[in-house]
């Protein structure tokens, strides 16, 4: 068995446009070990969300997308396998949490009905009664005080923080080996965001779930991830252990990004030069001894 639960090699993505092809990912290589929490951090349009979507095979049905490179999940190259295989992995071996919990839950079904669907993907013969029992215990794991009431509620009857917990519980229900979290909690208030992140971290650590954590928020990344990749305009520019990267950022882009975050200890509005000189410099990898 491979060391890595996920190993992406030289991933490229291009979209067909009127004038020809536009490449948006220029050869991304990243990996995640078993039980490891890895962050992909970058600004909007940098390519972080499309990377996540490719892993799940969500872009392959798009006629205008051209994808090349290898996506190894558990040692198997997903790119060479039929889309049905990827379909089978979704919600079972790989699951995903999106930014806005309230819009990713279906408003016309109760949480209980949606939860049963999720559990049935993992076990086709599960009875309604045992699905209900399991949902209750999973909701209890995410610190929902009154799971029975939540199961008969609709998403719009619950707060954003509550829905986010429901999403986390659903995403972890079938004990996936990889969880992809795309900007989780960005739509939530800071105190709620902090609580749900702590909760999610405790759960994935307890179950040894690997996580690909996608975010634009450096503070959240520092809090959550073991290792960080920084992405800029479809290229990885820096990679290292979280501690190391935050204490000693070396790439001009990573440094600019960190300088731009206003500090709660003061120091004034960050001075950002208009130039992006050096942002396209080659990638700096802290784990490769140069």
């Amino acid at each position, binding site marked *: 068995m491979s060391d890595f639960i996920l190993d992406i090699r030289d991933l490229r993505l291009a979209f067909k446009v009127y004038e020809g092809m536009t490449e948006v990912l220029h050869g991304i290589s990243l990996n995640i070990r078993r039980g490891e929490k890895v962050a992909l951090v970058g600004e909007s349009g940098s390519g972080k969300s499309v990377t996540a979507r490719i892993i799940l095979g969500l872009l392959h049905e798009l006629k205008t997308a051209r994808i090349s490179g290898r996506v190894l999940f558990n040692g198997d190259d997903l790119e060479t396998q039929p889309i049905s295989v990827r379909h089978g992995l979704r919600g079972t071996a790989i699951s995903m949490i999106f930014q806005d919990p309230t819009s990713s839950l279906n408003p016309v079904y109760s949480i209980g009905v949606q939860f049963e669907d999720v559990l049935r993907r993992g076990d086709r013969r599960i009875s309604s009664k045992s699905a209900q029992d399991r949902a209750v215990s999973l909701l209890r794991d995410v610190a929902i005080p009154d799971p029975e009431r939540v199961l008969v509620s609709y998403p719009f009857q619950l707060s954003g923080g509550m829905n986010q917990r429901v999403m986390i519980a659903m995403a972890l229900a079938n004990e996936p080996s990889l969880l992809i979290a795309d900007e989780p909690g960005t739509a939530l*208030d800071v105190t709620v965001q902090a609580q749900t992140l702590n909760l999610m971290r405790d759960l994935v650590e307890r179950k040894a779930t690997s996580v690909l954590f996608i975010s634009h928020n450096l503070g959240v990344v520092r809090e959550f991830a073991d290792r960080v990749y920084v992405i800029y305009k479809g290229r990885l520019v820096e990679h290292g252990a979280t501690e190391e990267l935050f204490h000693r950022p070396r790439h001009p882009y990573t440094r600019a990004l960190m300088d731009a975050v206003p*500090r709660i200890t003061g120091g004034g509005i*960050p001075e950002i030069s*208009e130039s992006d000189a050096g942002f396209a410099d080659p990638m700096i990898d802290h784990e490769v001894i140069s």
Partner: protein
Amino acid sequence: MNDVACEFRPVLEVRKVSKVFSTGSHEINALESVSLSVARGECLAVVGESGSGKTTFANMLLGVYAPSAGEMYLDGHPLPARRTLNLRRAIQLVQQNPLSSLNPRRTVGASLKLALDVHRIGDRAGRRGRIAALLDEVGLPTDFAQRFPAALSGGQRQRVAIARAIACEPEVLVLDEPTSALDVLVQARVLKLLDDLRQRRNLTYVFITHDLGVVRNIADRVAVFERGQLVEQAPTAKLFEQPANAYTRSLIGAIPVITDEEEALRRKVLEENDSG
């Protein structure tokens, strides 16, 4: 900046303002007896989570709806529920998402011209020059006047929204999460622009945001709202170093930070909550 000396003559004063919304069967107290004043040239940050009443507060300053109780004054004159053109001119708004606050079918120039026309600023011939000067003031090339919002980046659009807000020479700008939708590098540049404009034009800001990192570096004073109540107000540095209210402390404690120095401050604040 935080240490700008401003004489404390309130340009804006709010006395015991409440707002109750009725939804048929029950009533919601969106704001309960809030009193605040803002000095000329000051930047007052209004922070709080969703449902805290900060947007209700902004909407009342702007005259979108009238308070259920209490009074508001601009330069010592009462702010009535129905605003005259001149009072509407005096308090302007910059919203979070410029893509929805700018009319997509109007060019940048046309949007700015409308603001000048409505408030009868300058004469017909002078307006073109004014539009160019406004774009220049917010750091955009003057030929952007011909562009539509869709052809601009998020940061550029927000600069246009700021130019439109200052076009009619207001005294107070209400900034409702003006940089929350922007990437961090763009955010820093837009914050710098806002800070420069305030000093150059002696503007007064009511800066509504949930981002305490931004607040720490742009505001002179901070008002913390929780469930419709003003729970704490203090000069910025003091609020971060000695937050008096438990809710303020939990807000500061929840910020994801990136340096060890900030982490230490956060821990210190949280410990006070645990011991208190």
